[in-house]
């Protein structure tokens, strides 16, 4: 079934909205300001419902099937979390209610901060950043505020080649210059390389750990010491926290600032592009710089306080993506200490896939991996089958493809992150599909190159889209 664009539907005069009764007089707006209103289509309720019901059917979500998108932690999103976030007491709460009228949400925020501190091992938390990259920005702002407070002028940040793509941009926004750091042949950072680069103009390092190769940065402690010795700070991108909950205490390994992606590790749904939430966790030393307002407790009641003179200020208009925070809170309360099991099973699933596929796909780093594993198309290249082809062909088998061509440090990367919520049976089905595709690449490569054939559309012309952008209808 096809579905026209919204404005190709409808007729002027229809409405899908129940207009409230007019119980006051009409007052004309001053002509100088009065406009004619937007050119929106008028639809009836059933037209709206059918439009979006059909659109939804063209989408692949976690509820549809296995979604091993590397670095995105596409775990199952529990339905009970949706119930909690939609409670009228939360959904209908104005962000500027007087403290005494919003004790419920303040308690929730305080408690969630404590829980995230406990999970990460860090000392203090701000829930304000609205996404992972927003957390990075907040972290970099804290770096900047810290050095400003100390009267130091540091302008550079080390960023390893296995870090997430947003990291350099977040640095740049804060005026830092990103200094690339090459990983060694084990796929991790080298202490010597860090030592060589770490100087008095360098504010610190921004690592992703486990890194984007799915490997734990085994020298992190030593590296943190080098950075600290040189007066720098260690930022950790915690997007991959799903691998190490209960296994690693981030403060103990030398991390000063860490952001979390609640929409990855803590199971809040990603919504086809957000909203997410990117809380920032810091050490006691950096706590004064956290965004305001912060929840404080006094005499058994909570209130919001702006009274933190060293704070970087506000990064969000109000208190962050609160609805997302509720879902993560609900998840953590549902799991409790089982969060360690989450990481163990996530790592087990990734290693299982790695072991079962490494004879047919090239594995650039043949070591135990964490929550994800990275293959390449090296073997398939011989038949002129690329990572892109493999990814598209997976759709025909009913799976969402892995992350592709990332990390950049590996040519033609296929980055597979199964997460802990997948059954062994589904992993086995995926493994079979991947093996079948490897066979097809040898025996019938054209079939793989022509994939996908089952979805609504075949491959889309992305070059044309970028050359002549058509961004509105």
């Amino acid at each position: 079934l096809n579905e026209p664009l919204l404005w190709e539907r409808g007729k002027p005069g229809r409405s899908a909205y129940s207009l409230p009764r007019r119980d006051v007089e009409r007052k004309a707006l001053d002509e100088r300001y009065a406009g004619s209103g937007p050119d929106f289509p008028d639809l009836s309720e059933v037209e709206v419902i059918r439009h979006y019901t059909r659109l939804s059917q063209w989408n692949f979500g976690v509820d549809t099937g296995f979604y091993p998108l590397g670095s995105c932690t596409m775990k199952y999103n529990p339905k009970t979390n949706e119930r909690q976030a939609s409670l009228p007491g939360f959904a209908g709460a104005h962000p500027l209610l007087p403290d005494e009228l919003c004790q419920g949400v303040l308690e929730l925020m305080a408690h969630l901060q404590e829980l995230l501190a406990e999970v990460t091992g860090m000392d203090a938390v701000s829930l304000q950043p609205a996404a992972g990259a927003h957390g990075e920005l907040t972290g970099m702002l804290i770096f900047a505020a810290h050095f400003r407070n100390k009267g130091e002028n540091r302008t550079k940040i080390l960023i390893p080649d296995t870090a997430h793509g947003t990291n350099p941009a977040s640095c740049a926004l804060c005026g830092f210059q990103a200094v690339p750091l090459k990983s060694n042949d084990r796929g991790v950072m080298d202490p010597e390389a860090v030592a060589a680069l770490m100087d008095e103009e360098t504010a610190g390092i921004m690592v992703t750990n486990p890194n984007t190769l799915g490997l734990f940065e085994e020298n992190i402690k030593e590296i943190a010491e080098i950075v600290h010795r040189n007066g720098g700070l260690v930022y950790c991108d915690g997007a991959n926290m799903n691998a190490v909950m209960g296994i690693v205490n981030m403060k103990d390994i030398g991390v000063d600032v860490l952001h979390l992606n609640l929409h990855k590790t803590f199971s809040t749904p990603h919504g086809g592009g957000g909203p997410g939430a990117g809380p920032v966790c810091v050490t006691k030393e950096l706590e004064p710089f956290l965004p305001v307002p912060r929840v404080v407790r006094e005499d058994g009641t909570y209130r919001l306080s702006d009274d933190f003179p060293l704070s970087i200020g506000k990064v969000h208009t109000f208190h962050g993506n609160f609805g997302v925070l509720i879902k993560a809170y609900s998840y953590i309360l549902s799991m409790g200490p089982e969060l360690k099991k989450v990481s163990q099973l996530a790592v087990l699933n990734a290693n299982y896939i790695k072991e079962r596929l490494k004879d047919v796909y090239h594995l650039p780093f043949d070591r135990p991996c964490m929550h994800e594993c990275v293959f390449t198309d090296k073997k398939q290249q011989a038949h002129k089958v690329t990572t892109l082809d493999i990814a598209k062909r997976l759709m025909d088998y009913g799976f969402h493809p892995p992350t592709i061509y990332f990390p950049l440090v590996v040519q033609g990367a296929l980055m597979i992150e199964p997460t802990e919520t997948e059954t062994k049976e589904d992993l086995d089905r995926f493994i079979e599909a991947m093996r079948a595709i490897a066979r097809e690449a040898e025996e019938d490569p054209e079939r793989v190159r022509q994939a996908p054939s089952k979805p609504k559309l075949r491959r889309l012309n992305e070059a044309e889209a970028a050359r002549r952008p058509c961004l509105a209808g």
Partner: protein
Amino acid sequence: MRYLPHTPDDVASMLKAVGADSLEELFAGVPEACRRKDAWTLPEPLTEWELNAHMDRLAARMASAHSWKVYLGAGSYEHHIPSTVSYLLGRSEFSTAYTPYQPEISQGTLQGIYEYQTLTARLLGMDVANASMYDGGSALAEALLMAFRITRKKRRVAVSRAVNPFYRRVVATYFEPTGYDVVELPVLADGTTDLSGIGGIEDLAAVAVQSPNFFGCLEDLEAAGRAIHDAGAVFVACFSEPLAFGIVKSPGSQGADIVCGEGQSFGNPQSFGGPGLGMFATRQEHVRKMPGRLVGRTTDLEGRPGFVLTLSTREQHIRREKATSNICSNQGLCAMTAAMFMATLGGTGIRELAQLNHDKAEYLKEGLLAAGFSAPFAAPTFNEFVLKAPAGFADTWKRLQQQKIVAGLPLARLYPELDGHYLFCVTETKTRDDLDALIREVSS
């Protein structure tokens, strides 16, 4: 645990396949020195039913719009949300998908966002809108940073003091480490922005004006645009209540170069201020300087129309530190919600709903004026307005809480010069009876 499917048998056979003896052994790659030594002190898992009870308890301790009459706006608006929108959003094909990197199996999200971009551009009177920013405040910050990319080599922006103060604080945070300056423009006696001084500001990249502004007042954007362009600056028009554009001229039609603001009003619950929706639009010529994701229309191998993420050459994974912004996850589902809401209202509906908001606000304004309040500002307003309260109102304000009424936002903390002034917001959710009750209460 119902989210963890592994049976002991599964674990045993999988461990065998990977050649490990235990789950602990899987972490051989984490050096001993990096292993967590301290024990968890996380609370025991709650059952689904205990969780429900716990959350019900927390939610019950809120003065939510469900059971209270809350006359607050200031960037977060209580509007009726049709059950259709809530239902459609709940469909997990939308909510449990990631950013649509694989267009063949993401046409639902992609077409939905393309439609959002289109309706947003039409609403704001602009050529193109992006797929969303975090919220109104960060959208304004990004808009001002974008202005530097447009104007090059300038280093100063001016922002009206009548712009939402929370937005201005976010701008300040974003600007702090950049070396760029923010100049605050004063407010005239009528409640609108005084732009007379901008000609004298050197190196001026952009000027930001909000309309309706924080005081609810409508700015004369056309005049503002002329003044700003005369000063050689980019005209950034910002908003916190997009419903206004149902009856108020769009910022685009008044000459704005970048329009940005908060879209929560359109179907997104207030939810203590988030998730919100940063709406962001500009003119065609600036599209490659715009931050954020974009969905574009194209065709597939067989020539059928379809949609893809496009112009990603502006983004971090390609441009890294030279990207137009660091934004990656945005507020996709909130944008989808806004599109559903705009489609539900339609052109006819948005005009009438906006008019109703205006008229109800006017009704309360008149009632309060008759009850002894006074109006500091003369500019026309949409669904928010500032009044100076009669002496002793602070006690009345507190007393009204007993009747589950929050009678406006005291402005003293945000604007010391407006001590004793309150910002009232009235939307379609209040009936005439509600308004009469409030007027009666403050009169007695």
